[in-house]
């Protein structure tokens, strides 16, 4: 056929291309994983800078630094950027790096589409961030973009927001399809489903959730677009629609989305705790079943975000009990992590510190979630800082700590160099203290009744807000140390061995450090 194609095929085993085109045109899962991880780090810093603006404004009561309109844009973009630009791409980056190596595959199943999934993201976030400079400012309706705030009362930039969500969704769906197909079709002979590493399992379930709910989000923003510009009345009661319909559709997407951001963390933490306990993971199959149960339940709990909106009583009771049911499989997982550590030969390198902190602090976030699930109690907590404290506990020391743990755990495999253990531990303790000082006081001010999403507050909340802001600055600036550690490790350092960690198990530890550009071009033998 064509000589061009055959030539390409012959070059196939060579290393990476030179220059910028390596990154622009790449089809290599390791390159694309790296791109995703750096992109998410950049978004983490941008979204973090916005959080710093928010906490600076809240340092004292009264209007201090920014206008209320700009404050609203900051909370909206902070949420959107951290979720869609920070946490999700970081997990996709980890999936890209690790899933093919863990199952003994030569690459992702559809390598060119993999590159497309990544390169949509910088464009999508360019559009979202450029809305800051548009007439009327950036989206200002909160990351949940409830109608009619996001329809009737939205700034003109909402149209750009809608289309940027559309292409982000397309990126997520393609990325998720790639992961599912890779896991279903590319496992080396002998890697049966119940022998798959838990990170792979967690991503199989996450990808399924993504494919199921990202299209629903696309539907929600499409209805918004039509309501705003083309006269439909999906979310307009005057025309026979219902603004509450928006909340139903949004949270049908939004609740599985929450688990999309935590299931891969469960996988990561299981690996790290197993390694540094130097024992076999306790209850592998119950871990799998717990994740499956959580994923299935995630489709029938969405209305617990809407208890105060005026749901029929039967719906409130159903969603309350369904939500509480999720505590059971989650409890199984926490039990298994603790049981794995029980009588293990524990050491506390940086990844293990982050993983243990994850177990403790994520559980705090889970328990406050259980409190929020109780309908009568939620009437008091709803839209207060208690909710803010709850979801930041599951997302920051939950999802983000697991991502940092994963970076410390696998970066010797990626770069071939050990990170600086002393600096890593320093980073951990600064983050650990910072995150708790930031978010724990928010439980108190929330229970005392401080509403979320306001740039000003009553004087009685002043002390704890100041404490929270100090913690936020500590946590925020500590992340520059993380950036420094990562760059230092990539540039050089003590050479890592192939196995890296004494207790590490799995296929990715059998290849050289740094991992060669192409691994497992022919499938390995697994018994």
């Amino acid at each position, binding site marked *: *056929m*064509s000589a061009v*194609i055959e030539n*390409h095929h012959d*070059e*196939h085993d060579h290393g990476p291309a030179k220059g910028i085109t390596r990154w*622009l*045109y*790449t*089809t290599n899962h390791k390159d694309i994983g790296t791109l995703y991880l750096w992109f998410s780090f950049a978004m983490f810093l941008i979204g973090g800078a916005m959080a710093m603006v928010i906490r600076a404004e809240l340092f004292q009561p009264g209007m201090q630094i920014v206008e209320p309109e700009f404050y609203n844009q900051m909370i909206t973009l902070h949420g959107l950027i951290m979720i869609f630009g920070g946490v999700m791409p970081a997990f996709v980056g980890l999936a890209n790096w690790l899933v093919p190596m863990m199952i003994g*595959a030569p690459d992702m*199943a*559809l390598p*060119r*589409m993999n590159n*497309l999934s990544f*390169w*949509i993201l910088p*464009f999508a976030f*360019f559009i979202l961030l450029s809305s800051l400079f548009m007439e009327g400012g950036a989206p200002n309706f909160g990351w949940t973009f409830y109608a009619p705030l996001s329809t009737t009362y939205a700034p003109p930039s909402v149209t*750009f927001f*809608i289309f940027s969500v*559309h292409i982000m969704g397309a990126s997520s*769906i393609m990325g*998720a*399809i790639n992961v599912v*197909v890779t896991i279903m079709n*590319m*496992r*080396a*002979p002998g890697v049966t489903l119940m022998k798959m590493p838990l990170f792979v399992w967690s991503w199989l379930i996450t990808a399924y959730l993504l*494919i*199921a709910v*990202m*299209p*629903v989000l*696309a*539907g929600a923003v499409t*209805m918004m*677009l*039509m309501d705003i*510009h*083309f*006269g*439909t*009345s*999906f979310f307009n*009661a*005057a*025309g*026979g629609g*219902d603004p*509450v*319909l928006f909340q*139903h559709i949004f949270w*049908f997407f939004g609740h599985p989305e929450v688990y999309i951001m935590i299931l891969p963390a469960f996988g990561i933490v299981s690996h790290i705790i197993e390694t540094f306990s130097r024992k076999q993971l306790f209850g592998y199959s119950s871990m799998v079943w717990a994740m499956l149960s959580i994923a299935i339940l995630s489709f029938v709990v969405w209305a617990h975000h809407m208890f105060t909106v*005026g749901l*029929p009583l039967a719906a409130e009771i159903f969603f309350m009990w369904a939500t509480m049911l999720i505590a059971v499989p989650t409890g199984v997982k926490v039990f298994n992590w603790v049981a794995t550590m029980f009588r293990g030969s524990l050491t506390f390198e940086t990844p293990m510190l982050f993983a243990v902190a994850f177990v403790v602090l994520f559980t705090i976030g889970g328990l406050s979630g259980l409190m929020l699930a109780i309908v009568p109690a939620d009437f008091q907590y709803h839209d207060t800082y208690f909710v803010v404290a709850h979801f930041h506990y599951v997302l920051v020391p939950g999802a983000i700590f697991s991502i940092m743990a994963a970076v410390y755990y696998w970066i010797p495999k990626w770069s071939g160099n050990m990170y600086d253990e002393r600096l890593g531990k320093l980073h951990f303790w600064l983050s650990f203290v910072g995150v708790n000082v930031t978010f724990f006081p928010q439980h108190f001010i929330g229970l005392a009744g401080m509403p979320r999403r306001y740039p000003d507050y009553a004087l009685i909340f002043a002390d704890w807000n100041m404490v929270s802001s100090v913690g936020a600055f500590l946590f925020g600036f500590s992340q520059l140390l993380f950036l420094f550690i990562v760059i230092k490790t990539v540039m050089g350092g003590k050479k890592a061995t192939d196995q890296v960690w004494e207790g590490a198990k799995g296929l990715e530890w059998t290849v050289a450090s740094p991992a060669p550009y192409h691994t497992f071009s*022919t*499938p390995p033998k697994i018994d």
Partner: protein
Amino acid sequence: MSGGSYYVPDQSRFPIFMALSLFLLVMGASSTINNLDDPASNSVYILYFGFACLFLTMFFWFRQVIKEHLAGLDSNQLKQSYVYGMAWFIFSEVMFFAAFFGALFYVRALAVPWLAGEGSKGAAITAIELWPAFESSWPVMTTPDQGNEFDLAKKSMAWPGWSKALQWLPMWNTIVLLSSSWTVHLAHLGLKKGNRRKFNVYLGITVFLALIFVGLQALEYYEAYAHYGLKLNSGIYGSTFFMLTGFHGFHVMMGGFMLAIMLARSVFAGHFEQHDHFGFEAASWYWHFVDVVWLMLFIFVYIL
């Protein structure tokens, strides 16, 4: 999970060009929509340009994939990746339609009756006496504000009764689309038996039926706007009707376009073998999916 080497393509320019095209497309679309009232706006050309780039990138990308396939680079394992990939893509499309069907069910079963004061929630809503004259029905031909902000329709698209069933366009649309699902299946059977002529003829008929369907749908929209006064801004019935049938119609066009490409590949390039024709199979799956969505529409939007 066969052993041996899986074809991992080398560097490719297509993905980043496609991302760039999408960027142009959505920037153009957003600015065009934001400037609909401004006749001097040129944003629509960005939209056209983005669309043209997307189309060209997809053309060359698919051409490359077909070339690689003909060069024998695809192992069975890679073909299996395409099979799974297409299946999951169709699942994502199902969920997209689920959002709109969910909206339809919600307004029919809950929102509209509540607005008219039914049940304890409805009593709470009518207690504020915002729209006391509104009564619940489906298809709902008025709006709670009695057409203040909206153009009320005179007539709905609902089932006209057995006596007029044959003058009712959706009935013909159903017949056309169901037949096309059957003809695409016959084409597939022909191909599996190695009968190229049967494949081409039935695939040609399918594409023709797809065109008929789109034509009838256009006629129906014309009738709705010109004679029934039923528009996108006729309240929630018009909203759900046009969004559900509109997205379905758009998917019919995409599916018909895919099948037309497959027909062209078969007629002009002699592509597809008896046991090796996933390109066609993927398009035909998509076609059956579009057909099932229509059946749901026929039942829940038109009949019930």
